[in-house]
């Protein structure tokens, strides 16, 4: 009986984690998906001004 309880509890916890994960995914604002908020870095080179990300 004790063993069985443990299994049930573990399964519920895992279910909760998956549930919270999926809810958070749906609540995540769609507009920011794929957008990077890297700061802009402008570099002038050969008569052109490049708009780069800081990490570039």
């Amino acid at each position: 009986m004790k063993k069985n309880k443990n299994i049930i509890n573990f399964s519920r916890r895992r279910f909760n984690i998956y549930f919270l994960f999926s809810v958070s995914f749906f609540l995540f604002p769609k507009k920011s998906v794929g957008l990077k908020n890297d700061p802009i870095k402008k570099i002038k080179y050969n008569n052109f001004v490049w708009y780069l990300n800081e990490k570039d």
Partner: protein
Amino acid sequence: MIFNSLEQVNISNIPVVIVGSGPAAITIALELEKNNIDSLIVEAGEEKYNYDSQQNYRGEIVGDTISDLTHNRLRQFGGTSGHWGGWSRPLEDYHFEKWDIKKEDLDKYSDNTCNILGIKNKFDKANLNDYFDQIKFQYSKVRFGKKYKSHIFKSDKINLALKTQVSHFEGNNNTTQFAVCYSNGKKYMVPSKIFILACGGIENSRILLWTREKNSQFIDPKLPIGKYWMCHPWMLGGNGVIKKSKFKNILKDKFIDSNKPIHIATTKKLRTAQNILGGTFYMNAIEDTKIHKEIIKDLLCIAPELGKKVARKVFNKDLKCGNIFLQLEEEPRIDNQITLHSKLKDNLNIPITKLFYKQSTSTVRNAKKILEEFANFCRETGSGRIAILDEVYQLKSYDSLGVNHHMGGTRIGSSPKTSVVDKNLKIHNNKNLYVAGSSNFTSGGFANPTYTIVQLSLRLSAEITNKLV
């Protein structure tokens, strides 16, 4: 029927005289024919290009450099469609904000317009974000002279007189009575019920100005003829590298996939948010060209890691590398105007065109704002990296790559103080003189003008038919 001079035409009883034989003129004649109405098309040039005839199109440009007026239009049967690029697309609804015509007024002629231009009525637009759309142009291969020669030759309703130049119009009591023509060295007074001036974004104004100079009582002296002249500034704005697949990811099934360059256009929201006029731009992304290598070389120097990533994909068709060319909307300014030259004259002793044109400082500002927003979009979405040409970035100036779209000069409007024709394209305070073509545009939008010229011509044909039938 096609005639080599006016001498062979019975001019006594033709209800509509159309001056010019380009897309506007031919469209109108074809529509009138469907409604059993006779017309006379008067073309100053010959069936094909003639060097001496073409010289009558020379003009002086005062101000900033634009393409030579002698060569960027054609004085021949079919008009400038004899060498146009064929890019076709309707104006956006917000481009009509200052017109007395709404987009819906012209949209009903879309099917017929596409039929005349030999293109599909499919002008897709896919929204990238608040500020940009991917758009599709249709490419017409129609040369009006070539396509409609046989039809006009066989027609007993359309009379085309070649080598016949209209000098001016004559009339009284606000009624036009004659088109004064010269053909084979002879002068003809051609009578008609309706006269339509359809000979291009320069000549329409020039003939009206000469008509007014000959008889100031006949054409309202206050009309701003020749003023608010515009073009589409066409320039190199920058260069860059973009990933086609990223655009596909953003647009999903709405992505416009073709072997043509990716065309991007500004949205109404960008115009409003940044208080600018809009434009369209494209990248000449042909793989493995010199420019392709130059851009990757630059990237390797300024951002080595990114440069290496791009260089590894150099032969990947997904990667587009190239110069960015912009075609922008230009603000209509009263000072940009067509006038008559005080000294130089053409073969009929009519003053040639003197065009005053100054680039607007707002054009380069618009170009920078558009490219800056697009550069940020590419950066933030990982779709690519964009560089702006330093002259544009510094708001100094831009080098025009050519000015081939002539618009304005006889703009549409309700007030004779600020416009030349009314919403039916009839000259203010005149009963039967109409104007067709891009000279009527109140604003130019960013799409090439021929599509809208044909739409307006179809609408004018309906108006004339209602009057005559």
